[in-house]
């Protein structure tokens, strides 16, 4: 499948791409139709060849700026969402969400700010064992997922937050987490081992952090 798409992308189109206004209309229709965010790649695959999806998205974004619905960036995806200031109108549409336990909320925040993070690191930060149910609940909500394994003895799995998490909290990217910069500057996101206990994953931890936040 992938190779086929690649081939298709490489083949010069027989027809010129539709005008930008038309590309914008098509993306508008696609994003309105989908409740989930769609990536540039997904949009490109649906639009005629030669379309400039990123440019069309920019046009669409400014067209909807200040409207009752707007174009929101969600990680790698784009989605139409209602303007947050109109939330009060939508009481009927509000979905009753299961209340998360304090442990689940804290675990979620730790994963978001420290990702990729291992269970042992979460436990070290909270000073208490993380119950299976807590992690399962977050996995079930699809707010977190498994990241790469750590290249340390035991190769523990890491957790990272998902696009659905970003969508849920109206974040464009994990870099937009509230207070992230201050926390990092205060050294509170450093992985600092207990004095006298050299940590095995010292080499890997900074790398993981770099992976996530390097380009800001």
């Amino acid at each position: 499948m992938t190779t086929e798409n690649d081939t298709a992308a490489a083949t010069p189109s027989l027809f010129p791409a539709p005008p930008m206004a038309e590309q914008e209309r098509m993306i508008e229709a696609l994003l309105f139709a989908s409740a989930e965010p769609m990536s540039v790649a997904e949009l490109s695959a649906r639009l005629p060849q030669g379309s400039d999806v990123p440019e069309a998205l920019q046009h669409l974004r400014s067209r909807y700026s200040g409207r009752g619905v707007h174009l929101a960036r969600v990680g790698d995806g784009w989605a139409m969402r209602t303007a947050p200031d109109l939330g009060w109108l939508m009481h009927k549409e509000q979905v009753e969400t299961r209340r998360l336990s304090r442990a689940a909320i804290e675990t979620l925040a730790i994963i978001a700010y420290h990702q990729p993070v291992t269970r042992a690191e979460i436990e070290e930060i909270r000073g208490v064992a993380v119950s299976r149910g807590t992690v399962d609940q977050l996995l079930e909500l699809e707010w977190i997922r498994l990241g790469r394994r750590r290249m340390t003895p035991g190769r523990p799995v890491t957790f990272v937050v998902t696009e659905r998490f970003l969508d849920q909290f109206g974040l464009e990217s994990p870099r937009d987490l509230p207070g992230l910069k201050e926390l990092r500057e205060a050294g509170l996101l450093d992985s600092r081992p207990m004095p006298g206990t050299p940590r095995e994953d010292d080499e890997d931890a900074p790398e993981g952090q770099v992976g996530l936040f390097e380009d800001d």
Partner: protein
Amino acid sequence: MTAEEGADAGSVAVRLQSEALIVDVEGYEGPLDLLLTLSRQQKVDLRRVSVLQLAEQYLRFVEAARKLRIELAADYLVMAAWLAFLKSRLLLPPDPTEEGPSGEELAAHLAFQLERLGAMREAAARLMARDRLGRDFFARGTPETVSISRRTQYTATLLDLLQAYARLRTRDDFRPYAFDRTDVYPLETALERLREMLGHSGTWADLAGFLPPGWRGAGKKRRSALASTFAASLELVKQGQAELRQSETFAPIHLRPRLKPRGAP
């Protein structure tokens, strides 16, 4: 130090608060959480918290709990032991012959842990206070489902066709060497049969049970059917449709359809 202790002990409010803490011990998420709560009573920036004072508060708490015959979880007691050790390190002049980190280093680390936990708490609260999807902003109420049709296109060129035919005719030249193929159970047939039967089998089943009727006896026919069925099962495993297991060498081979991983659509 003594001044601190005196002020602390003299404060009825603080003592009442400690008792409330004990009653609420269930509400704490572990010793670090309790320490964080205690450190807030010092009403200073977490960076300037007195770890020594904190250690004493904690030890008093554990002592009081013991008097009230409140069962404390093991990790609270481990923390108490560690804090007692830390306290002694902080109070005694450093022993130059002793290995390991100094009391100050350990205290600094505990202060860091508390500050970090506090910061994460705050971050969690800020996160949860954000505008939320489905509460403050909304996705399309009537998403139009995208219909997906899957189509498999088979390709073959004229050259493939000619080569296939040429191959067959060339093979004819060597016919004298051909096997007697009357008792051969073809792999494609085995694959087809296995795929169909597997759909109806939810659990581990002996591979031999998948042999077609008429091929289950002994001898060449069974061997051929078994070989093809086994090869077909390997193919299904490769395609991710089945799982195989064998408890030991020469034990019966068991097969089952591969369950979809969690969260798969």
